[in-house]
């Protein structure tokens, strides 16, 4: 065997091609099925947009979409503020407690989501058990699982992602800028709003976008802490899927895929532009 003939092995290329086929075959089949008048993907009947029409007439999906977006917006606002604050504190801290604080912010990222979901459910159940009656008689507050507990849970798992993205940005930050501002007589607050904040802004925006996407995508944690009647889009899809493969979900999947393609395309372009400048 000559060395030259295996110099550039084609094997990695074939694996990449296989991965592409593996990743896209199911998605392409869903896309094709969404335009098929037949209920089953196996036999092609004729081209039809009826599943898209049906999608737009399914009120439950729109209701679930509104819930999803409201939860995602609230979770994004709170988790972005809390995550950014903790990143700033972590970045500047020289305290001995820093390690504990860091673990508290970082470990939710590695805990499987089912454990975050169940542990928060247990907290809410315990609080309702221990001081539910007491709170109701004293303040007229009724504690129950619902949209509030879902938002609390989403803030909790999103804020770690925001904190890590902002912390990454802060680590690249040139501290001499801060010293320069202070040498020139700027106060702490002035420096923060006119130097630190503009520099870490891209990190905050990226973290917020990340939080928003994660919140929209979440099923498991929501499922554990939601109240009986609440639906979000993932909850709706899951309950529809339990009864088989309703074709209206094909149409919904295609819309989701197009949105994702658009978003990834735009962010990739923005990133590569940012790099070349």
């Amino acid at each position, binding site marked *: 065997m000559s060395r030259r003939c*295996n*110099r550039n*092995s084609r094997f*990695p290329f074939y*694996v*990449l091609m296989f*991965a*592409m086929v*593996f*990743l*896209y075959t*199911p*998605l392409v*089949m*869903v896309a094709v099925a969404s335009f098929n008048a037949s209920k*089953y*993907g*196996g*036999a092609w009947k004729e081209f039809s947009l009826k599943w898209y029409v049906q999608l737009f007439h399914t009120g439950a999906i729109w209701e679930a979409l509104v819930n999803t977006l409201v939860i995602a917006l609230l979770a994004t606002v709170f988790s972005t503020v*809390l995550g950014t*604050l*903790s990143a*700033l*504190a972590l970045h500047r*801290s020289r305290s001995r407690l820093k390690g504990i*604080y860091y673990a508290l*912010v970082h470990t*939710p990222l*590695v805990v*499987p*989501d089912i*454990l*975050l979901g*169940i*542990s*928060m459910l*247990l*907290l809410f*159940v*315990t609080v309702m*058990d221990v001081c539910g009656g007491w709170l109701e008689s004293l303040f007229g507050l009724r504690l129950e699982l619902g949209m509030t507990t879902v938002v609390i849970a989403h*803030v*909790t798992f999103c*804020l770690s992602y925001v*904190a890590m993205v902002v912390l990454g940005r802060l680590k690249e930050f040139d501290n001499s800028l801060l010293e320069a501002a202070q040498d020139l007589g700027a106060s*702490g607050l002035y420096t923060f709003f006119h130097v630190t904040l503009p520099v870490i802004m891209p990190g905050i925006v990226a973290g917020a976008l990340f939080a928003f*996407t994660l919140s*929209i*995508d979440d099923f498991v944690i929501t499922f554990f802490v939601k109240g009986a009647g609440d639906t979000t*889009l*993932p909850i709706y899809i899951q309950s529809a*899927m339990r009864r088989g493969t309703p074709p209206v979900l*094909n149409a919904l*999947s295609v819309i*989701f*895929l197009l949105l*994702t393609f658009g978003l*990834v*395309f735009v962010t*990739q372009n923005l990133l590569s532009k940012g790099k070349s400048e």
Partner: protein
Amino acid sequence: MKRAKLANFLIGTPTFVWLVVFYALPVLIMFLLAFKPVDANGGIGDGWTLRTVMELRNPSYPSIIWRTAWQGALSTALCIMMAVPISYQLARMAPRWRNLSLMLIIVPFWTNFLIRIYAWKVFLHPHGAFKTALVWLGLAEPSTQLLYNEWAVLAVMVYTYLPYAVLPIYAVAEKFDFSLLDAAKDLGASSFYAFRRVFLPGIANGIWTALMVVLIPALGAYLIPSLVGGPTSELLGDKIAQRVFVDRNLPHASALSALLMLAVFLPLLAGLVLRRLREARQSTEAERQAPAAAKEVRP
């Protein structure tokens, strides 16, 4: 100096309190409830008991725990075995093709998790084109069930976690100096030998990260087995959800969750310690090789 410290304390406190109340405390409650009895209407009883923990020795659990570990390890291994050649290929491609391929790998990663599982339900559907093609080729019987078994769970797990494995490995492979591989081959190493002894150690950090980010969610998988798995392919996550939503036995669910928590964190700690040791060794080696450069960097 003191004012800065106070300001930092004020900045850090809200998140600290939030995480203590909504993350640390719930995890603590989870461990405590494993030692509480269950009452008749699905609530938590009074007093403390070891019964729930003892019930984990119930003969149905070892097989579920074993299957969870085995499915997790197998899907992680498959993801990494695919992600390493993919990252190698991506890193060596012309930038135009690389960006396109990378985008094609990222899109499924950002697509809604449920949509991805749904796509597989359509793909493996008994009336679907894939099944029809398999039967036509003589590879499957008309009665073969592609869905609702452990192979379906494995396929969807690999499908879901493959981008998780590619991204960290590619991030390291992108910075790898490929002239090292050419040098090894010029010195007489075969392609595979050079790949194994030069490329793999070079991207070891990426492989470690990929191992963590795939294995941990795989161990906690709940949605995938509950939607494409069957009664014979139940994983620990299914059992936890069943105890909560079907039997309403929260102490039992807590005991299983605590077990999963330990199963995730103990290997993670071991991995971290190993990594620290390796990094420490690498940095001392680097210092030995270039003491002057190292001194310059350190302030």
